[in-house]
């Protein structure tokens, strides 16, 4: 937004954390992290640490919110008090309620809710440590936790933020780029359906920058998706010759 603050891109074209403009932060995925949840994941993207737990499908309470033809999704995006620089109140803020809704809307196209009507699937996204891009990282992790819980899905959704820092389009913004950059555009993409399920934008981009941003974010989401698929396969799969026994 303002110039003359932190230099976000150095003379070598690298970012504050040494990444190239189109480079993702390192991603670590630990599926089945929690014993008692039906599905869970510990997801780390750079310094972001996110814990997601899924419960359900289960009976809906209160009964009057159940739907006769499909399941409902309940999403809680919550930042831990210790997740940011200054202690955050543990009470749900306006931003958290909005992001819970945004993430739910982005997940709804992939969950085959018609298969289990009158039930609820609850998704808890706990941000343990925030460093920019938590909504898309939370969404990516939520898709993994849903798959881990055995909920039928049309595909996985993978998210990636793109933005502008010092006039350069950059992928997967960290906290300082998010706060001091010129624009921030989180995008979630469903590779199977070739559809974008979340697109928000804060700041200003030209039409060309917007197009470039979409292309970069989809590319970043595809790389994230490859990591999601690999994590699921490594947790559940064994070599090809061991997969043939009839069950």
């Amino acid at each position, binding site marked *: 937004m303002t110039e003359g603050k932190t230099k976000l891109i150095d003379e070598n074209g690298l970012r504050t954390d040494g990444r190239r403009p189109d480079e993702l932060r390192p991603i670590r995925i630990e599926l089945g992290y929690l014993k008692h949840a039906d599905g869970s994941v510990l997801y780390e993207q750079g310094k972001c640490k996110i814990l997601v737990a899924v419960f359900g499908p289960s009976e809906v309470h209160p009964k009057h919110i159940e739907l006769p033809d499909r399941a409902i999704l309940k999403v809680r995006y919550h930042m831990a008090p210790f997740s940011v620089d200054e202690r955050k109140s543990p009470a749900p803020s306006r931003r958290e309620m909005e992001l819970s809704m945004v993430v739910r809307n982005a997940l709804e196209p992939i969950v085959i809710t018609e298969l289990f009507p009158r039930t609820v699937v609850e998704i808890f996204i706990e941000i343990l440590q925030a460093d920019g891009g938590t909504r898309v990282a939370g969404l990516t992790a939520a898709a993994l936790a849903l798959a881990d819980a055995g909920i039928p899905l049309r595909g*996985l959704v993978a998210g990636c933020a793109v933005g502008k820092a010092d006039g350069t389009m950059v992928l997967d913004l960290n906290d300082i780029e998010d706060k001091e950059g010129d624009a921030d555009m989180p995008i979630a993409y469903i590779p199977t359906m070739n559809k974008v399920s979340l697109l928000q934008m804060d700041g200003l981009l030209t039409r060309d920058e917007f197009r470039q941003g979409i292309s970069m974010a989809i590319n970043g989401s595809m790389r994230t998706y490859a990591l999601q698929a690999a994590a699921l396969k490594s947790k559940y799969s064994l070599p090809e010759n061991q997969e043939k026994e009839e069950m």
Partner: protein
Amino acid sequence: MVPGEVIGTGDNRAGENTVKVQGSIVATRVGIRRGGPEGVSVIPLKGFYVPRVGDMVVGIVCDVSYNMWKVDINSPYFGVLPATDVFGRRFDPTMDDPLKQFDIGTVLKAKIVAFDRSQDPLLTIRDQDLGKADFGFLVRVNPSKIPRVIGRGGSMLSKIQQASNSRVIVGQNGTVILTTSDPAMRDKLIRALKLIEEEAHVYGLTEKVVGLISGKVEGQ
């Protein structure tokens, strides 16, 4: 296979745990692909129990009302056991006391007679080997692994019963009753069930399970 992974073209028939998306058949769950003349499907490696008519389930009574029992069958939907089914005649509140018959916490072996997603699954205990389970130890297994616990044509289950010399009652909903009174054998059976759950897709599992129960293989 992971959700969204393409497992067949639009010419194939989409079987269980698959869906057609933009002309391709994709997996909807993490699992193993199975192809055949009947189409392509996915054997899930994790999932929840969706009631099916004809399934034998093991449930726990969780609520009693004046003319029916509500039974937790390890599914998103609770089973309903009507009093008429239990008493075998029209329910008479002046004579019949459902609480005396089955109190909360009672373990029941029941069969699903009707379920269509618009209403909860209807249970019956009026068949052979159904009704109250008086004795045993309950173990929960992921419902997607139950076909492996039973085996092809019941082969795995019969070998487990032979090796343990005890009866093992398997509910399709992932609840298993171990009837052995020997605590050591009970522990072995629990370990065997967990082994099936973890290694359901591995070759030579039956021998490993039988070896574990008969004490030839060191348990996990």
